[in-house]
């Protein structure tokens, strides 16, 4: 029997998830459509006053991104749990937290990276300046992976439950608070012409902290949910 290195296993999990997603391409649109629609609701509710929209655009885009991430994260382990491949992953000799990290990376590639392409368009529709849009993209690039990583913990905890959906939101949203604050703070600062490096450094720090720490509780929770 051929054994694979940890790195190969990491790549294999990502590749498998990407192939699976490619076979169901139509579903990839859902988080994007959701993101765009949530943003559309705000001008409809607030009125189309340009200065107001411009002022609150970063908040709207970030809250919409957060909700889109929350919506799509539910599928992180669901399919694998249902068809039993998650159990096989737990039983491999590789460290489960590394495989979990691979799953989260694949999820980020599939659900958050597309948002990065739509977000500038949304920014333009809300009359944001182009250099502010650049900062917005940077915060999305740094912040969205953290949302997926933290969300993974809650998904793993609620995996076996019938009514996991609402519970998932309650578990995850308080933990999203710091990233939302720093991200919209950075964009706000950019809009007022202040330097943003402080915010971005904090986001980098949180990102690396999340990459190193979150796979551990996620793996522990998965083992618990499967036992």
């Amino acid at each position, binding site marked *: 029997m051929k054994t694979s290195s940890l790195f190969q296993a990491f790549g294999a999990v990502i590749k498998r998830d990407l192939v699976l997603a490619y076979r169901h391409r139509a579903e990839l649109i859902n988080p994007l459509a959701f993101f765009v629609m949530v943003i559309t609701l705000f001008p409809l509710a607030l009125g189309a006053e340009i200065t107001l929209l411009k002022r609150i655009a970063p908040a709207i885009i970030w809250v919409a991104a957060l909700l889109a991430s929350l919506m799509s994260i539910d599928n992180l382990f669901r399919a694998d749990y249902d068809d039993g491949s998650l159990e096989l992953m737990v039983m491999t000799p590789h460290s489960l937290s590394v495989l979990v990290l691979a799953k989260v990376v694949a999820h980020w590639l599939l659900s958050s990276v597309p948002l990065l392409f739509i977000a500038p368009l949304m920014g333009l529709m809300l009359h944001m300046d182009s250099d502010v849009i650049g900062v917005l993209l940077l915060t999305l690039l740094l912040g969205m992976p953290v949302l997926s990583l933290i969300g993974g913990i809650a998904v793993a905890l609620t995996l*076996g439950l019938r009514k996991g959906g609402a519970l998932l939101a*309650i578990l995850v949203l308080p*933990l999203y*608070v*710091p990233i939302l604050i720093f991200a919209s703070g950075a964009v706000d600062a950019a809009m007022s012409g202040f330097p943003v490096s402080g915010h971005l450094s904090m986001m980098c720090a*949180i990102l690396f902290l999340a990459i190193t720490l979150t796979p551990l509780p996620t793996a522990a929770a998965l083992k*618990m949910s499967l036992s």
Partner: protein
Amino acid sequence: MFMRFIYKFSSPPYFYAISGKMLPWLTVLFFLLLGYGLYGGLVTAPADYQQGDSFRIIYVHVPAAWMSMFVYVVMAISGGIGLVWRIKLAEIVSISSASIGASFTFLALVTGSLWGKPMWGAWWVWDARLTSELVLLFLYLGVIGLYNGIEDKRTASRAVAILALVGVVNIPIIHYSVEWWNTLHQGATVTKLDKPSIHIDMLIPLLVMAGAFKVYYFIALLLRCRNELLERESNGKWIDELLEKVK
């Protein structure tokens, strides 16, 4: 030696017996502290030169806020112990703390808003401390929701322990990010009670009240743990023996 004591104390029958003996003493201690604290706080402490008598709500508000954070830490630590050593009692302590902690958090929020109306002129201000206390309440609600969502109580306890540990790592991050968010947005427009070197006559009742709250938490925790133990171990032999004695 220490571990032997821990194992002995954490065996359900022993815990049940000894907690039953502790409860009356704790109750007496609680009422003594509460009586002294309330008398000192509401009667003998001088009125504040600026806030008048409204400041007296701190004798409930501040201890409740302290307890809200303390209980979360207790919940996480005992959850971690339960996770590592599979001590059933630690799991029970962890989950029994959750709803008590949520009540303390709620109490701190309510008393804070009651105090805020005459002082700040608004029931709610998006101040850093208030907001992080609110987020703490959400964290508690998540823990309680997760525990109730899982059928099997042993699994639920372990899930809650993982969540509490994640939360405990996150609380400082949330706290400081919220503080930063607040200072970025509106600066120090809201007066903080930033150590205005509180008068000794005001301080002593406050500390006594904090002690009373801690004892109260201990009593509530023991009562909840005893109930939870009876429920989980309802087939246990020691419970049958207990029932024999009651008859």
